[in-house]
């Protein structure tokens, strides 16, 4: 447009001119209205950027420098959430092609795998992100535990985290059945039998006919006596709707609580440890004029002048870069894994040909190993004890020493190592003994089942861990030390049992050094 025309418009009058000017500035005013407060260039606008946005305002406006160190969290919580987002997006894409009916489910997965453009890629990403999520949620819990981040005022959020762990496992488990192949079918059959394991007790007492909580649990899970169409539609609904909604809800609470509980746990002297900030973005560039307001809403004793409250930096951009980086790293890992390895798809589910060994998903193989000793103890008893113990930790450990520090508290890293040794040696010893010599049933074939339910390698291991942890409470004169001992032991037990269940158990759950030694059928 030439200068002449513009002049003419100007001359002709205001309305048209205004229209033209408005049209020209629309992109800018659109951005202004979308991100009110202007570009995040000053501390004030950075704050507005965060609390003016429904998604960002789950973060606090300012973040402590302690939280931003990689070693504080290793980004595990964000990585878990990132993995959830990835499964959400790829999962919705898969839903366009997946048909949840036994007649066609397997075929539709075959179609996704072989025919749908990028279908295999998406399914691989979905599968890998699901596994990454299980791993990171476990590591995230370990991080929160070892930095004693569950302590006051974060006790409730620790419970929310446990709920998220359970929902994550539920999501992964329900997704396992959907391909309707042999792997899925028999893994879910095993899982459903674990749900029915209270029958071991009721059978031993002879009351299953009248009172059968195990059978009831399995019936609720499967909607039928066996894994069939009802189970598939149940698992599908749980997997694509109910559990993701529940997860999103709890995640919202979890994040909100992180913020309301004063950000991530940190040592009381975090500021001193970090020293003066240098080289990074200057803290509080503007002379604070209304710090009393901040003092009113941010924990701290005195209004900070010339410095951010408690050595914080604006969340935008410091925290957001970190979060985005972790998100992209998670995406990178999932995409790379998806290109390297295909998600498994075995032959069509065949209720007449049991897989031998039939194995549950890998994260349940530790439980399956315990189930092989006693279905009730492995499937219900010990997991309940572990979850109860985990839930009680923040309410029993009311100490303050070591909060926010890795392996903080009495004993420290040395106790953690000692517990690793104790945990590994006990589980390996008891497993070796059972694999070499068998257990009560082999020695006394007619022994009542209740005796085995009470006395089996699983319960003995739990007792040993418990006794060791009580000893640690006494020795270190600290509940935290006992908790650390117990948590470490259970972690070691989980890892060892899972590895044995995954790699060293063959047909009929017999121990083999390698699948190459498995007998042919």
């Amino acid at each position, binding site marked *: 447009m030439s200068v002449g025309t513009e002049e003419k418009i100007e001359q002709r009058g205001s309305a048209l001119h205004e229209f033209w000017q408005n049209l020209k500035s629309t992109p800018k005013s659109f951005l202004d209205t979308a991100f009110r407060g202007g570009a995040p260039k000053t501390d004030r606008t950075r704050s507005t950027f965060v609390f003016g946005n429904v998604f960002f305002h789950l973060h606090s406006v300012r973040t402590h420098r302690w939280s*931003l160190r*990689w070693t504080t969290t290793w980004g595990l919580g964000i990585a878990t959430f990132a993995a959830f987002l990835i499964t959400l997006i790829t999962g919705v894409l898969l839903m366009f092609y997946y048909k949840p009916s036994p007649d066609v489910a397997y075929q539709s997965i*075959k*179609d996704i795998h*072989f*025919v749908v*453009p*990028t279908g295999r*890629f998406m399914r691989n990403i979905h599968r890998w992100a699901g596994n990454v999520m299980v791993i990171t949620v476990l590591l995230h819990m370990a991080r929160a535990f070892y930095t004693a981040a569950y302590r006051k005022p974060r006790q409730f959020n620790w419970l929310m985290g446990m709920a998220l762990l359970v929902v994550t496992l539920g999501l992964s488990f329900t997704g396992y059945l959907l391909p309707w*192949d*042999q792997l899925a079918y028999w893994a879910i059959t095993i899982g459903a039998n674990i749900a029915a394991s209270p029958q071991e007790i009721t059978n031993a007492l002879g009351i299953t006919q009248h009172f059968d909580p195990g059978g009831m649990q399995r019936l609720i899970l499967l909607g039928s006596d066996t894994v069939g169409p009802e189970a598939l539609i149940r698992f599908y609904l749980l997997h694509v709707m109910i559990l993701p909604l529940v997860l999103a809800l709890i995640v919202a609470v979890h994040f909100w609580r992180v913020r309301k509980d004063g950000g991530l746990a940190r040592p009381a002297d975090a500021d001193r440890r970090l020293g003066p900030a240098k080289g*990074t*973005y200057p803290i509080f560039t503007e002379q604070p004029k209304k710090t009393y307001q901040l003092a009113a809403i941010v924990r701290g004793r005195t209004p900070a002048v010339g410095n951010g409250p408690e050595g914080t930096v604006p969340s935008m*951009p*410091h925290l957001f*870069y*970190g979060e*985005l*980086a*972790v998100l*992209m*790293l998670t*995406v*990178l890992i999932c*995409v*790379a894994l998806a*290109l390297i390895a295909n998600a498994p*798809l*075995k*032959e*069509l589910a*065949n209720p007449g*040909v049991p897989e031998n060994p039939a194995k549950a998903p890998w994260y349940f193989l530790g439980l399956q190993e315990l189930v092989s000793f006693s279905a009730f103890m492995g499937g219900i008893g010990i997991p309940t004890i572990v979850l109860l113990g985990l839930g009680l930790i923040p309410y029993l450990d009311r100490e303050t020493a070591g909060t926010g520090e890795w392996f903080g508290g009495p004993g420290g890293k040395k106790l953690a190592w000692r517990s690793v040794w104790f945990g590994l040696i006990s589980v390996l010893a008891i497993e070796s003994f059972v694999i070499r010599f068998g257990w009560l049933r082999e020695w006394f074939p007619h022994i009542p089942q209740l005796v085995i339910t009470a006395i089996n390698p699983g319960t003995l291991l739990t007792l040993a861990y418990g006794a060791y942890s009580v000893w640690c409470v006494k020795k270190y004169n600290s509940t935290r030390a006992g908790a650390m001992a117990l948590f470490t032991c259970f972690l070691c037990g989980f890892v060892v049992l899972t590895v044995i269940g995954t790699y060293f158990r063959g047909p009929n759950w017999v121990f083999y050094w390698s699948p190459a030694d498995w007998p*042919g*059928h």
Partner: protein
Amino acid sequence: MSKNKYLLLISSLGVLLLLVAAAVQENFLREWRRVQASGRNEEGSIAVQLRQIVNPGLKTSDRCVSCHVTMAPGESTVTGSKLLTAHKPVVHDPSEWGCTVCHAGQGQATDRADAHGDVHFWPDPMIEPRFSQAGCGSCHAPLGVPEEERLSLARNTFARLDCYACHKVDGRGGMIRPDGGGMEGPDLSRVGINNYDRDWYAKHLQQHQQATQGPWRNSFAAVNDQDRALLADYLATTMAAPKLIEAKAVFNSTGCLGCHKVSGVGGDEGMDLTREGEKDPGQINFAHLAGGHTVENWMAEHFRSPVSIVVGSQMPSLGLSDREVDLLTMYMRSLRRKDLPASFTPKDRVRAVRFGEREFAGDGATLFGTFCTGCHGGNGVGRRSPGMPSFPAIASPDLLGRVSDDFLTENITKGRPGRRMPAWGELTGGLKPEEIGKIVAYLRELGVPYQPDSKPARWIKADPEQGKKLFASICSGCHGAQGQGIEGPALSNKVLLATATDSYFVQTIGQGRRGTAMLGFLEPHPARPTLSQAEIESIVAFLRTWERGKK
């Protein structure tokens, strides 16, 4: 923060790189794109696009033609890559019927290994090309196939009588010869399915008698009854798949149905083979197999030595030649059942399923070959297989001379309970009485006629107590303490005791049965005691006590 920035940058670049790699792989590196890029027709290069054959009736949507473009509708003139060759002429045009209906494999896949089913856990991989006629078995049921010798005799008869002068079968014959010796008659390639005029001979003969010159005069002559029966046998089998028929003839000479059932006919000892050709490689244990992990290789090696492929298999090693192994493998792969809409069900399948027509020919030799040779050996010479009691030589004159046709019929119909000989009656093994009659007649051809003595069926009046002692010391080693049979046959057998005469037992104990371990006890022998006639009679009396005990 700068650390995070670099992490973000590197991760993002990494994701971008991987996504581009995935996109390139998906869009540019696909084999079918390269194949199609090489394709040319009269108008120049062809469009590079996903191609498929859809046949809603057969529920196929085969994308095989994305590589095998020339088999797609209207693309037969395309040339280029070596994959771009036309399908050899067949009855079922691939551009209409699709590929997987005959060849199996995964029609919806577009990668070579995936499409051919050469991937883990694809339950229905492509049938090896050298066995491709096995694909006919997905829909067709070749009917009335005789045993091998008779089939080749029948085929040779067709050639010997020069029917090829006028008739075309499987692309051979039917040309008009320069000397005017032939003319174009109907193509007989598929009359086994679609049937042919049963009065052909009378009409041919009439034409021949009326004609004074030309092919009707020169190329046709009277055919005797025996040759006409052979021609009928041959024509019943034509279905444009001669290799498959040959394979089935081998099957019908190997006695597999003695232990296995196909479509409800056969023994119960082994697995039902009705759908054996659909065997899912995911369910096969390849642990003991040398060589390729394919269904065909598994089957072939299993035929060579069943027990070394399937641990604990009860199937005897049949000593087959390589040719027989190949043909049997092909026949096994043809045992398929595609669920077809009625309009696609071929006539031969309808005749087999709805009208009970047999898939084997009705003559004694074929019936014996189909049901008996697996255990009793070709020509009834018996079979010994490691780890199993020997199977009796039923063509031995020592048996056939001592038993009546009724004995044979009864023993075939009711079997030998407790032993591996199944009951072949209509309700169990599935053989009709006239078929069992044919088998008995064939046995008589192999051996000798019944030479009955004048005594009644039960004439022995001896002391069973003495026989009991003798049996325990002399017979029980082979026949078992309770006569249940160990290495030798079971004698406590209801059917045997009910049908065998006293004379049969006395003669068999006294003179033995040649070709088996049973030697005559009347003859002096250095290694075991000799029995007197009275002692033998007492043993028979003892055998009879089992019969009473059973009642």
